[in-house]
């Protein structure tokens, strides 16, 4: 379904965002991509939807050879891979309904059919009462669900979620994770990037750890889960002062919650 073959990405500054990443994700899987900020999680997502090309290596998504994809096929690829962007990328001057409608408009769906689909998705993510509000009128968890709804509205086979719990308290984070799990159960392949250790610990899903552009460890689903590897990541994280701050923030949110 998704295959990265010895993929490297070097940015103009000369720093490697990714080096020699090989990765397979099967259809219907739920995979966590874990690593500190700047580890390369977002870079992987951006490569998967051909926002830019890798410096080396090959990428396959479904039947598409992403690296050699002709330019006019890029929109098709993007319509089949739903992305929940880290910064959400919602249109602030459009209502929730219009935001979620947008991919359907782009895909040229008829407006009656599209309205039905959007209303169904709104029910699925629990935003029916916010249908005609604007994004700034909603809470963090709610706009996150808007972004999820928009990523889902074209029924993509693959859903990429980039830090969907990044700014949320634990309870809301769990709601989001549950929502993504439900989506996954219906057959959508989900890859979720996060740096939130708590989210992963008890999930029992496949976890891929990335640091400094390299895969440093991988945990298979429930059966093989081990706390050892998680603590290894924690060590790496400890090296970066700004990461500590982020963790603190997370903790303080938890405190408030409690």
């Amino acid at each position, binding site marked *: 379904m998704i295959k990265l073959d010895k993929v490297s990405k070097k940015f103009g500054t000369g720093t490697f965002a990714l080096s020699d990443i090989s990765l397979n994700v099967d259809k219907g899987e739920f995979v966590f991509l874990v690593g500190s900020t700047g580890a390369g999680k977002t870079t992987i997502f951006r490569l998967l939807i051909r926002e830019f090309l890798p410096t080396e290596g090959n990428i396959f998504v479904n039947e598409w050879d992403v690296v050699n994809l002709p330019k*006019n096929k890029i*929109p*098709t690829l993007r319509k089949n891979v739903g*992305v929940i962007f880290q910064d959400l*990328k919602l*249109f602030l001057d459009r209502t929730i309904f219009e935001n979620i409608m947008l*991919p359907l408009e*782009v895909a040229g769906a008829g407006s009656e059919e599209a309205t039905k689909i959007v209303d169904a998705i709104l029910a699925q993510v629990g935003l029916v009462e916010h249908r005609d509000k604007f994004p700034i009128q909603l809470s963090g968890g709610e706009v996150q669900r808007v972004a999820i709804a928009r990523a889902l509205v074209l029924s993509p086979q693959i859903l990429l979620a980039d830090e969907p719990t990044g700014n949320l308290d634990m309870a809301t984070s769990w709601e989001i994770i549950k929502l993504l799990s439900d989506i996954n159960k219906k057959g959508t392949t989900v890859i979720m990037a996060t740096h939130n250790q708590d989210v992963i610990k008890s999930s029992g899903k496949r976890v891929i750890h990335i640091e400094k552009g390299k895969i440093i460890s991988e945990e298979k689903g429930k059966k093989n889960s081990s706390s050892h590897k998680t603590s290894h990541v924690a060590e790496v994280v400890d090296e970066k002062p700004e990461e500590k701050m982020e963790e603190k923030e997370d903790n303080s949110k938890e405190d408030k919650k409690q």
Partner: protein
Amino acid sequence: MSFTKTAWKNIRRSPYQAMAAILIMTLTFLTISFFTFLLVGSSKIINYFESKPQVTAFFKNEAKQTDINSLENQLKQTNKIASIRFVSKDEALKIYREQNKNDPLLLDLVTAEVLPSSFEISTVEIEDMAAISDMLNKSEVVSDVIYQKDVVATLAAWTSAIRKMGIALIILLSLVSIFIMATIIGIKISQKKEDIEIMRLIGATNWYIRWPFLTEGVIYGVIGAVIGWIVAAGVLLYSTPFLESFLKGIPVLPASYLDLLILLGLELLFAIFLGAISSFLAVFRYSK
């Protein structure tokens, strides 16, 4: 029609930019309309004079019919005459009355006796007019020769000057409106850079993004053309009575509604062209 909807929303949300774009288009099409009126009118006037007898010879009051007849034969023998028509004093009075029917004072003053009888002559070749008018001048029964070649030549010179000026002005204004519109649409594209980026990321094709901007340019063009045409046609219709009396009997006005509608049609085509060109420039310059 979601492109038109999006374009319309973009226009409503930036009224000053829209106003600038529409006004420059209006100015362009107002100019185009006025110069078209001028050119069509002046070429109609020229046609009128060219189709009229080019040489008119007025006879002295004492001229006898036999002398006039022999002069006519003499002229015909040159084989340079396309047509020759004798206008008697009575006919001259009729023509005069027809031309001044709205002015009773002028009608009262003039009787058939005052007006001279005349020949209205058109030549086969325009170059022959000089020779014919010489012949007429030499005749003893002829008092005066009016030679309309000068009128036509002067008019033709004026028309050609107006045409050149008009074309230059229209080209200049078209270029100005293209650049202004391209700039305005360019600004809009830059303002929407983030939105465009998001659209791309969720799978919008380039054309899906470009169409609303192209439509917007065409809408500006069409609105400008319609306003320009309405103003120009309105001014023309309003001033028709005045112009008609000024042009005395030269059949230029009133302009037919069909012609005006044809002008509107052509202007709309040109407006769509201008709008599309400007948007294309902007789209390819600002949205790579």
